[in-house]
Every structure is written in structure tokens, then in C-alpha cells.
């Protein structure tokens, strides 16, 4: 048995024989032709054929709902229509008398070099698209049949590299997994592999010709491939693969199912996202909305302060892409550990307790207003919730709403459409949780940020390894604050969600539902497993009336250990 490392693109396990995928290598002749007109016709015919193919691939991907990969082929078709490149090729053939093959190869090599020399990684990766088009055109000109490259039985495909149009043309029923020597995680092939969920390894530098036909196991979890694996590995990974398949099938069954307990209590399962690129994951995992869209990415991805227009585009894209689902966008939460050069924030002794989030926004109102205007403009394109982070006092909420209304009036006087939206706040400080009754009067919803709430309640830095013995993610103080926040919200018709890590904790789902939580927002991949948990909960034996005053101060859950905290609360 031999083991080789690579970089995984997709988790998962593939077991089977290896098929070495070798694209033909063409020799380009430098001989000159006499019938230049005929040669130009060959060139144009090849270009038209490849363009037609690329457009067909684009339509095929569109029909399959793969917008991102459809875009690749749409761009390819446009690249083939490049006037400059065509003019150059015509010159090579008509003035110099070169062959169509020569013209294709020379034109594409120049473009490939141009992209390779570019600074930006995105553009460098476009050189692979040029090579793809070159090879496709040469395939046509040489009359090569590329359909048999995959063999006839299901296999793990091993290749030097795969061009997008090669990848998309692969017969999926014959493909167990994919291993390439080259490729980057930004390449279109990686994008395709992710969207198809193929176990995939790239940058596996040890690929050898003699792998062809050998039995192998691709282990995406450990980023490696075993060639002729031992029986022990075979047994272990076969079991893991079967378990994956069983779990996946179960999760898929939950798509389209309501998130409802056995006794009929519904809860909204929303997703946490970081930007427009996550829209697809929200839909694929059947999330019912977005409970936390961290707007920081617009600030962190930009070298300069992002304009209203830039922000508007990003928000609109998400709202439109997910309509009619609700999308809750949290206003800027930078500061503390997330510093940005152009903000010129002072270095702080104690950043977690420092100048961050709404504290910056209420100090630098011009900066805040740019974001609020962008959000209000985007509200016309979907179902928006605007959420303010790091609140401790009621006046902050009142002030945020005041500025929001100011922006709304401005936009309306400018004749810009503003849609409907809900207003909410994060409950992530003990102060906010304890004042939840007063805060609830001001807003439509609360969202409990359990990570910060835990850190601030227990005075424990989550990043610190030496504090681990003292940390308890289910600390009764935190759970009590969560429960009381939910109750306070409901007293004022304010709905309450949880968007921190605890929201996805399966051991707490039942408690949260008992306490009446209205929404749980988790990362997209956790949506379906969480729905499975919710559907297994039965609250019919649980009394729904709120606990009596004396019961209310009982611990909501016995602490795990009877240490200091345990004694304190039991």
C-alpha cells in the first residue's frame, strides 16, 4: 500500500479502480499552406463549433440550476468572439500562410501568457480557460474523439489537470472521484467539483502513469489517496463511506419538510452567511431564511471605505437571490479584533470591551448612514431585517432607529423606493439580556449571539486555551439569560432567535424549543441535521405556561461538574 497527499476540495470517500485521463497532445506544424482561403474556413468552422459547444454547455448547466458554472461557459463563448484574437488569427493565416492549428495555438498562447503575468489570482486562474478553449479548438481541427477518455467502467479519474469543459463533459455515472496534479482551489474545475460534490483531491504531485488500472481509495477527509490499500483501510473506509451515504440520504429526505416538532410546534431554521457567495448554500440546504448576514465582508474585502453603491449591490444580490425568504443583515460589527486600516481605529488595551460595532457607528454617523441607506434601498428587493449588534442600552436602539428614519426620509425625498423591513437587535451582552423587557418595546425581533453572550457573562476569552478547564459552553447563567430573553421578548410580541453556535447544538434543541424560541440560525450545512433534531422532539408532555416566580431562579440545567460554578448555582 502506498499513500499520497494532496489538497482536498470536497470531503468524502471514493473506492475503485483508477483511470488515468490523458488528453491528446498535438504537434503543431509550422509548415505553410497554399490555399489560405480554405484554411481560414477551417479556422472559422472550428471556432463556430467550439462556440456552439460552449453555449450548449452553458444552457445545460443553467437548466441544471448551476448558475456559477453556466457563467464559466458563457464567458468562454464570449472569449471566442474576441475581435482582436480573431483579427490576429486571420492575419496569421491569410498574410503568413500558417495553418489554422498554428493560428489557434499561437493566439491562445499569447492570451494565456497575458493572464499568467497578471497580479490578481482570479485573473491568473483565467489562463486555464484559455487553454481549455485552445484544446477544444484543436480537438475539432484534428478530428479527435475525446469521448472515450474516461473508459467504460466507474473509476477514480486521475489527470494532470482538467479543463472546465472537460470536467463538465465527464460522464457522472462513470466518475467516483477526481485527482489532479495541478489545479487551484480557485479554478473552475474545483468550483465544479464542489457543486457536484465529487470527492476531489488537487495538487497531488506524485501522480504516476503506473497508477492506471490499480485499485485505490480516495479519502477526502484526510486529503490523501491510498494506492492498493490494505484490507484494514478498505474495511474502515468502506464502512465510513456507507455511513456517509446513509446519513446523506436521510438528510436529503428532510429537504422540503417543515421544521416542526412531533406535537406541531414550528420553528424557523435560518442560515448564517458571510456574503453573496453563500446564497447558493442557503438554497441547497433548504434554509427558510437568513438569520445572520455578517455585513463585515463588504468592509474587510475593500481597501477603501466601501461606497453606498457597493454595499447596495451586495445586499440587493442576496435579498433578490433569496426572496421571498427573510434576510436579516447585521450592521457593521468591526472594531475590537476585526480592525481595518482605512478606519484608523486606535489600538486598545481591551478590544473585546472596546470601540466596536454600534459604538463606532453611533460615533461616526456618516459611515453608519452609508450602510443604512444601502440597506433601505435594498429593502425594495426582498424581505429584509436590519439588526444592530453590541447593544447594551435602550438609548442606543432609539438612536439607531432615529438615524435609520433620517436615512429613510432622505431617500424618500430623493424619490428612491424603500420597501418594508423589520428592525432587531443582537442580544449578546448580559446588560442587553437583563434589560430585554425595555429593549423589546423598541424592536420587532431579538437575536441571541451566544458566543459573545457566553464570553461576556463568564468573563472567559473563548480563544484562550489555558481557560479551557473553566469554560462551560452550557453555563447555567448563560442558559438562564437565553431563557429569560425569550420570555421577555414574548411579553412584548418581539420574536426571538438564536444565531450563535449554541443554536446548532443538538443537545440544547429541545430546551430552546421548550423555552419558546422562534428561530434558530446556523451555518447552512447544519440546517438539515438540525431539522432532523427538531422533528424528533416531542413537547406534548411539557407545560407551556411560564414558570412561577420562585421556580424562575432555579438553574435551567444542572451544570456538568459540581465545581465552583456548580455549587454556586445548585
Amino acid at each position, binding site marked *: 500500500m502506498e499513500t499520497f497527499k494532496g489538497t482536498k476540495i470536497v470531503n468524502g470517500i471514493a473506492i475503485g479502480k483508477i483511470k488515468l485521463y490523458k488528453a491528446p497532445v498535438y504537434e503543431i506544424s509550422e509548415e505553410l499552406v497554399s490555399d489560405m482561403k480554405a484554411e481560414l474556413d477551417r479556422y472559422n468552422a472550428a471556432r463556430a463549433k467550439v462556440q456552439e459547444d460552449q453555449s450548449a454547455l452553458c444552457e445545460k448547466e443553467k437548466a441544471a440550476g448551476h448558475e456559477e458554472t453556466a457563467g464559466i461557459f458563457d*464567458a468562454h463563448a464570449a472569449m471566442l468572439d474576441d*475581435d482582436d484574437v480573431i483579427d490576429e488569427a486571420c492575419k496569421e493565416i491569410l498574410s503568413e500562410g500558417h495553418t489554422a492549428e498554428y493560428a489557434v495555438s499561437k493566439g491562445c498562447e499569447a492570451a494565456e501568457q497575458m493572464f499568467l503575468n497578471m497580479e490578481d489570482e482570479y485573473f491568473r486562474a483565467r489562463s486555464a480557460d484559455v487553454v481549455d478553449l485552445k484544446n477544444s479548438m484543436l480537438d475539432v481541427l484534428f478530428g479527435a474523439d475525446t469521448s472515450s477518455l474516461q473508459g467504460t467502467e466507474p473509476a477514480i479519474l486521475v489527470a494532470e489537470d482538467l479543463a472546465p469543459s472537460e470536467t463538465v463533459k465527464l460522464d457522472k455515472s462513470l466518475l467516483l472521484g477526481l485527482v489532479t496534479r495541478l489545479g487551484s482551489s480557485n479554478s473552475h474545475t474545483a468550483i465544479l467539483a464542489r457543486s457536484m460534490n465529487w470527492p476531489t483531491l488537487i495538487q497531488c504531485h506524485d501522480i504516476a502513469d503506473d497508477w492506471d488500472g490499480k485499485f485505490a481509495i480516495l479519502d477526502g477527509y484526510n486529503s490523501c489517496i491510498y494506492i492498493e490499500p490494505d484490507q484494514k483501510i478498505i474495511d474502515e473506509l468502506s464502512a465510513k463511506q456507507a455511513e456517509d451515504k446513509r446519513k446523506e440520504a436521510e438528510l436529503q429526505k428532510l429537504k422540503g419538510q417543515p421544521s416542526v416538532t412531533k406535537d406541531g410546534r414550528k420553528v424557523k431554521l435560518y442560515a448564517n452567511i458571510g456574503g453573496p457567495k453563500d446564497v447558493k448554500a442557503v438554497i441547497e440546504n433548504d434554509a427558510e431564511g437568513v438569520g445572520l448576514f455578517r455585513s463585515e465582508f463588504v468592509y474587510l474585502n475593500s481597501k477603501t471605505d466601501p461606497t453606498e453603491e457597493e454595499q447596495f449591490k451586495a445586499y440587493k444580490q442576496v435579498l433578490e437571490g433569496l426572496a421571498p425568504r427573510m434576510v436579516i443583515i447585521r450592521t457593521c460589527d468591526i472594531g475590537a479584533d476585526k480592525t481595518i486600516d482605512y478606519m484608523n481605529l486606535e489600538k486598545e488595551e481591551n478590544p473585546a470591551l472596546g470601540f466596536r460595532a454600534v459604538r463606532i457607528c453611533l460615533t461616526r454617523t456618516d459611515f453608519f448612514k452609508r450602510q443604512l441607506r444601502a440597506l433601505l434601498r435594498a429593502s425594495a428587493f426582498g424581505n429584509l431585517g436590519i439588526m444592530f449588534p453590541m447593544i447594551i442600552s435602550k438609548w442606543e436602539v432609539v438612536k439607531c432607529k432615529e438615524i435609520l428614519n433620517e436615512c429613510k426620509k432622505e431617500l424618500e425625498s430623493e424619490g428612491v423606493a424603500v420597501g418594508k423591513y423589520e428592525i432587531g437587535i443582537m442580544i449578546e451582552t448580559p446588560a442587553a439580556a437583563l434589560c430585554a423587557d425595555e429593549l423589546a418595546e423598541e424592536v420587532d425581533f431579538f437575536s441571541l449571539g451566544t458566543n459573545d453572550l457566553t464570553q461576556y457573562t463568564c468573563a472567559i476569552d473563548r480563544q484562550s486555551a489555558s481557560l479551557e478547564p473553566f469554560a462551560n459552553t452550557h453555563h447555567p447563567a448563560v442558559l438562564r439569560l437565553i431563557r429569560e430573553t425569550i420570555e421577555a421578548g414574548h411579553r412584548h410580541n418581539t420574536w426571538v432567535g438564536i444565531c450563535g453556535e449554541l443554536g446548532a447544538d443538538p443537545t440544547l434543541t429541545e430546551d430552546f424549543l421548550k423555552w419558546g424560541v422562534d428561530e434558530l440560525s446556523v451555518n447552512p450545512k447544519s440546517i438539515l441535521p438540525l431539522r432532523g433534531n427538531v422533528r424528533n422532539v416531542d413537547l406534548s408532555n411539557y407545560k407551556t405556561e411560564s414558570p412561577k416566580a420562585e421556580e424562575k431562579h432555579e438553574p435551567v440545567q444542572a451544570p456538568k461538574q459540581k465545581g465552583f460554578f456548580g455549587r454556586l448555582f445548585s
Partner: protein
Amino acid sequence: MKEFTYVITDPVGIHARPAGLLVKEAKNFKSTATFIKGEKSAKATALMKLMGMGIKQGDEVLVRVEGEDEEACAAALEKFMKENF
């Protein structure tokens, strides 16, 4: 001759997919549109060269349109830029 300037707001700059659409848009007109940034320039119908200019977020580009339908072409391209870049 018509000219307008535009500051790119798209985080990736002039990237493949919308650039492809831009080429299609430009081909609807008889006029020649040229994108200019510093010393570099490319015709709006030359996708590779256009992408090769490495136009990034925050860059200001000058678009020059010359031809019989330059008025309409410039207006259409300006609108397209605002919507896509």
C-alpha cells in the same frame, strides 16, 4: 466623440462573465468603444485585452465612443457599467 468615466465598484473588477456580456452589448452598436485606464486601452469588443487591463475595484476608467450611433452607444454602455461593475 462621446466620453464618460466610471469608477469600478465590483470587488473582482472587470471579470469574465459580466465582461462577456459587455462585449455583447458593445457589438449591438456600430460605434467603436474604447476602455482607457492610464496608458492601457482596449476596445470594448476585445474581451481578452479588456480583462488583461487588470481593472480593479476603485479604478477609474475612461470610455471613449466614436461612430455614427455614439450617443446611444455611450448611454447604453454607461448604464451597463453601472448595473454590472
